[in-house]
């Protein structure tokens, strides 16, 4: 199967520091591709470059064959790259439904149609309901987002991402701070989503990563030291030394 999102030699320098060094990887439909590494390994910078938040210093990003390296973040989002944030970035003062509807509105903007109520946009509402349903938030959809439990907020974060109907999901530590039960629910959601999405997962919870990932890329100091299926990574001596060895 061909890659939906492919990354070649992506590099980012901050002054003299090379945060991401010539990373090459690809994301495929039906696959969860996990990126692991210690703090400061460049994982977040990588996600930020893929989503367009920061520019790449060099290298190339292609979405379904189209070069999007220099495209603006909003353009990439509309082209099908959705992302969630490590720190929850929901709109705390709106309801869960409103959060999703607003995210979905990006695909149906029509800002000049000021005579229409935002809430009356059928396409956005449908996308929002679908995303809420998929994320298991339907019963809580009328609650103000700021009052949701931590786990529900993380689910909402993903739901907002889904509401934009992306093809590629870039998830930055979706399991951070979750309890066991909430983790299970999120992993079930990801398993269900991977059928229709190409997923990049950055996560610190190693048990979860090795359970759910189809492929794993290991980064150290901004560079990729290994890529492969979970079993291969587990057995890779470099990885054991550089990363797992230190932790276990």
């Amino acid at each position, binding site marked *: 199967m061909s890659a939906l999102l492919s990354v070649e030699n992506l590099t980012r320098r901050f002054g003299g520091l090379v945060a991401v060094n010539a990373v090459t990887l690809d994301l495929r439909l039906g696959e969860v591709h996990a990126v692991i590494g210690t703090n400061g390994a460049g994982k977040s910078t990588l996600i930020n470059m893929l989503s367009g938040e920061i520019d790449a210093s060099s290298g190339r990003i292609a979405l379904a064959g189209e070069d999007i390296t220099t495209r603006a973040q909003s353009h990439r*989002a509309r082209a099908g790259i959705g992302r969630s944030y490590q720190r929850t970035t929901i709109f705390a003062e*709106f309801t869960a439904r409103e959060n999703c509807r607003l995210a979905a509105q990006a695909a149906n903007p029509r*800002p000049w149609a000021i005579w229409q109520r935002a809430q009356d946009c059928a396409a956005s509402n449908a996308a929002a309901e679908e995303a809420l349903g998929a994320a298991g938030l339907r019963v809580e959809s009328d609650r103000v987002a700021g009052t949701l439990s931590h786990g529900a907020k993380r689910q909402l974060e993903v739901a907002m991402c889904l509401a*934009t109907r992306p093809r590629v999901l870039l998830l930055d530590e979706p399991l951070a701070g979750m309890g066991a039960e909430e983790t299970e629910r999120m992993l079930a959601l990801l398993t269900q989503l991977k059928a229709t999405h190409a997923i990049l997962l950055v996560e610190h919870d190693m048990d979860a990563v090795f359970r759910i990932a189809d492929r794993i890329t290991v980064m150290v100091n901004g560079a990729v030291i290994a890529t492969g299926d979970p079993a291969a990574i587990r057995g890779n001596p470099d990885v054991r030394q550089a990363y797992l060895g230190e932790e276990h």
Partner: protein
Amino acid sequence: MKNISATMRHWLPLACALALAALGPWMSPYLADFVVKVMILSIFALSLELLVGMTGLVSLGHAAFYGIGAYATVLGAGRDGGSIAWLLPLAMGSAAAYALVVGALSLRTRGVYFIMVTLAFAQMAFFVFHDTPFGGGSDGIYMYVRPTLGAIDMESRWVQFYGVLGALVGTYGLLALIRRSRLGAALAGIRVNEQRMRAAGFAVYGYKLAAFVIAGALAGLAGFLVASRDGVVNPELMAWHNSGEVLLMIILGGLGHLRGAVIGAVAFTLLKEVLSTHALVGPLADQWQLTLGLAIIAFVALLPKGLIGVAARLSPAANGAAPKLDAVPAPNAKVTP
């Protein structure tokens, strides 16, 4: 109960406008004049509310667009006057055009930078009109004949009164529409979390620029009205303390509410009147700058949510309603550069 108060909130502004229209003929010339002045300031404040309250952009240079609208009106009218039909679009268009330039540049920055850059660009507009002879220089320039449209002549006190009232209702209505529309929802999202909006696929810069230009055009409308009322304009209209005062109005009324801008314009004008009236505050009136300064500090320190915030605290019923897109606390303007 909730429904009644919600309905009331909906129709109260219109009822106020109708009451004002009905009371017009009974007002003394001075009172009518005062009301016109406050209504023009309300339009000006509403236009800034779109930026600060609805989009979270703290502009300290909004008076530039007000002044440009006023100057465009007077310069367009020339010696022989002109028609409202093209002077009004000219005023709003000129203000919007400058807003487009200033917005395009200043929106490249954020937070404290944005505040300083908008202030500096307003000062630049001030200097253009202050230093060059085409706008009459520092003393300003006269409009010898006020704008007309058929039988409607801004020379008439009543046309001024009802014209300005109509413009206020129109501005309020337009902003109310924007608020509930997709544009308004997107602006609210940008105010709360710009990063998330961008990640969702919104062209945030374009939205902010649109808000900036609309706000500029509406400030230009207020400028058109003030020029038509006074018949004379001068660069002081763009002075930076005017930008500061209109910002004060919207926070005094209550940020995040359209009616806050109107309440703030009324309250601020009255506050200044009271503090400088000998009959009310005695010899302190001579030191109105001091008392006004202290009042501003105390007010912002103690009541950051404005008069509406006070009202809300006093009546718990108003708090019962579920927070919606349009019932919002102060914007998260604190952005680390």
